[in-house]
């Protein structure tokens, strides 16, 4: 019934071209570098070049993590933060992660909607990722995506993750500075604080602070943070009303400079690098384990522990 449409040929870029365009900050090259990593099409040589390039480079991007429960206003905060940074003439790269369906692998990535009004803009780059491919809650692609954005020399790199489970901790390993966003009146405040995230983040952003219950929540928070050594600072703001955003930027800039000057930044980045080695090992072994378990025969008489040990020994792992 329909006319035959001639099949288009998807743009093909060699790794050489991708790398060259990426370091010039070209969007097509940058976007493709991220795709190649995400689709596992990149050979290790592209990543090697990117990491080597970043290590020698003078310009350092500020890598800022934004985490928190659903509905606290992470996307809105990032949108007003990006808007303010763009006004200062800075280049911003943002990565946002949304969940993918465990059934079909499909995903609806809707994090852009909050800041689409800032486009078109040559200084703003936004990439949505799905949590696809995560094994044991860890997605090595996101770590390498940060390295790609660093190679493109953004002034700020902002990472927004799903605010639940393992990711809260992962994001701290990924970023120079991590902010936990909270909102007043959440019944689960206390539970949330107990989970340990509070010990790891640098900053707690109290969003929606124009609401009347905000000061009470800050009071509760203060009583908890006081018990933690090197406790995170608390900043009150309202992303929706665009109040307190400049103070947040000032805080981030000062804190980042402090971490740089006292050597903590270097240390954190080394930890990040080490963590990523572990990520890749877990990912690769995880895939192999998944394959083995899928195909493996069931023997209810055998102990699962025994099978695990004997198989790992077969694979040459010391157990």
């Amino acid at each position, binding site marked *: 019934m*329909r*006319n035959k*449409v001639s*099949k*288009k*040929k*998807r*743009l093909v870029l060699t790794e050489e071209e991708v790398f060259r365009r990426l370091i010039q900050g070209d*969007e*097509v090259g*940058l*976007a*493709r570098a*991220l*795709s190649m990593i*995400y*689709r*596992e099409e990149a050979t290790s040589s592209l990543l090697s070049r990117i990491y080597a390039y970043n290590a020698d480079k003078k310009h350092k991007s500020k890598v800022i993590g934004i985490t928190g429960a659903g509905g606290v206003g992470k996307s809105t905060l990032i949108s007003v933060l990006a808007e303010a940074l763009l006004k200062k003439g800075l280049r911003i790269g943002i990565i946002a992660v949304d969940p*993918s*369906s465990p059934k*079909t*692998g*499909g*995903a*609806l*990535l*809707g994090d*852009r*909607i909050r800041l*689409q009004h800032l*486009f*078109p*803009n040559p200084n703003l*780059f*936004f*990439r*949505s990722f*799905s949590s*696809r*491919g995560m094994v044991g809650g860890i997605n090595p692609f996101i770590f390498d995506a940060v390295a790609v954005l660093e190679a493109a020399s953004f002034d700020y790199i902002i990472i927004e993750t799903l605010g639940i489970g393992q990711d809260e901790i992962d994001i701290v390993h990924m970023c120079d500075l991590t902010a936990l966003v909270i909102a007043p009146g959440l019944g689960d405040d206390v539970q949330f604080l107990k989970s340990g995230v509070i010990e790891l983040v640098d900053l707690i952003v109290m969003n929606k602070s124009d609401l009347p219950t905000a000061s009470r929540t800050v009071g509760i928070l203060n009583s908890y943070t006081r018990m933690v050594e090197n406790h995170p600072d608390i900043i009150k703001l309202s992303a929706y009303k665009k109040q307190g955003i400049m103070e947040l930027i000032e805080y981030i800039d000062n804190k980042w400079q402090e971490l740089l000057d006292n050597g903590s930044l270097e240390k954190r980045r080394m930890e990040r690098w080490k963590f990523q080695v572990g990520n890749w090992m877990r990912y690769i072994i995880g895939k192999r384990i998944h394959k083995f378990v899928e195909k493996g025969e069931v023997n209810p008489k055998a102990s699962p522990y025994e099978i695990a040990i004997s198989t790992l020994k077969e694979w040459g792992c010391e157990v």
Partner: protein
Amino acid sequence: MADKVVRVLVGKPGLDGHDRAAKVMARALRDAGFEVIYTGIRQTPAQVAQTAVQEDVDVIVLNNLTGAHLEVFPLVVEELKKRGRDDIYVLATGVIPFEDVEPLKEKGIDEVFGPGTGPIHVINWIKEHVLGEKQGE
């Protein structure tokens, strides 16, 4: 699963706030196993094109229900060309009269899905053209 990721942008260019169809489409594409990025409503052609470039999508599904498709859809194709990414498939959906199909195709729209078609037709088209999977009639 890792090797065949299809990324689709559902874009609503033009002054049209009717997003139910676009959301239904986005959801259906998601359920077909694609990664779907949704721009939200009232986008300029340049906004849609820059989003497509940054997200490195395989296909853009455009939707506009105000009758502005003949003006606004080809502008998206133009913007993609400017950015060196006119290799991305552009599909048109919405209340598009039959006589507008050819003019849209002449201006670079790859296929038109007007009244009487549903998400399944779009999904099959994408599977055939992006994944190279032959679809039975």
